[in-house]
């Protein structure tokens, strides 16, 4: 009974965090829109020659360019935050795998950058729409990412790929430059990560982990295109 109550409480906490984040990111975009337009107005006035000193005008133009670029970057982050916060609104929904991965990579790239690990994408051009729980797909992807990251040395690489089989899509994480060559990095941790294993079971996904050579590891997560109805009832 207590476990059930804790589960309900956790779900409500997550739901509330999602709602707060969604509202927050929406407001953030409003502020960014005002900054962008105000900066654009300054740029308009500069381009109309309202500042006569050419050196000063050039300096101001550089500043408005920087503000514009950074505002767009912040807006893109706010957009991803908003999308991420809304992912758990409807547990089962149609989505593009690339969208949910890109949304999450916007946040995960920071963790890779802090360790000087390069992060690149190698996505298949077109994938069909997947009908499953997008927040669980994001949970699986982030869990794998955080298992892999500590196994890499500074200067290492993570390549995220995607693929299509008959009735499933997949994402792959290739890591290059692991710290030790005698074990498969992260494998035990992945096997013993109960939450990750539960998420895989709920959406009927499977993992394959293999060392590609002495220094590289490939993890492939295969996700059915559509969640079977008996599994769906557990979400």
């Amino acid at each position, binding site marked *: 009974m207590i476990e059930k109550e804790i589960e309900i409480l956790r779900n409500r906490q997550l739901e509330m965090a999602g709602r707060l984040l*969604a509202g927050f*990111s*929406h407001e953030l*975009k*409003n502020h*960014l*829109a*005002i*900054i*962008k*337009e*105000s900066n*654009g*107005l300054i740029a*308009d*006035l500069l381009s*109309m020659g309202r500042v006569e000193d050419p050196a000063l005008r050039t300096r101001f133009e550089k500043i408005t360019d920087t503000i514009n670029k950074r*505002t*767009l970057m912040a*807006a893109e982050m*706010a*957009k*991803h*935050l*908003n*999308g*991420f*916060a*809304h992912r758990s609104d409807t547990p089962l929904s149609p989505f593009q795998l690339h969208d949910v991965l890109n949304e999450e990579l916007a946040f995960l790239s920071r963790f890779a950058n802090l360790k000087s690990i390069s992060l690149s994408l190698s996505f298949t051009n077109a994938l069909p729409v997947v009908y499953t729980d997008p927040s669980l797909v994001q949970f699986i992807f982030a869990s794998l990412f955080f298992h892999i990251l500590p196994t890499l040395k500074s200067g290492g690489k993570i390549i995220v790929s995607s693929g299509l089989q008959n009735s499933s899509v997949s994402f792959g994480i290739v890591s290059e430059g692991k710290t030790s060559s005698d074990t498969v990095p992260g494998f035990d941790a992945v096997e013993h990560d109960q939450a990750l294993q539960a998420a895989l079971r709920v959406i009927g996904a499977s993992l394959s982990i293999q060392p590609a050579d002495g220094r590289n590891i490939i993890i492939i997560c295969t996700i059915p295109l559509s969640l079977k109805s008996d599994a769906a009832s557990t979400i």
Partner: protein
Amino acid sequence: MNKMQILIVDDEVEFASTLVERLALRGIEARSANRGEEAVALVKASAPDVVILDLKMPDLSGLEVLSRIKAIDSSIEVIMLTGHGSSAAGIDGMEQGAFDYLMKPVDLTALLGKIEQAYKKRTGERERQ
């Protein structure tokens, strides 16, 4: 030939007024409203050609304002602005008669392009009537 008239509806006063000024610098006549009811009153009074309409406002939602504008004059074109991460809200607006939608923060060049297309559609429809 009449000069194109734009109405910008957004509860963020600074956003709306700055956009009015930027359009004015490009020779486009624009006014702003910061509440849904105010926008509906301005539409009744001045029949703008194109309305740039924020989806989320405190008194009336953007979709309510859209429906009232279309009830006043269905040929007035409405471009919705959305701060949502997904395009779902914008698509809802288009299903209810909006010309198109753009995500905030807005790219002015994209907005000017949409305004021009919407105005062409509006004037084409007026000529047919």
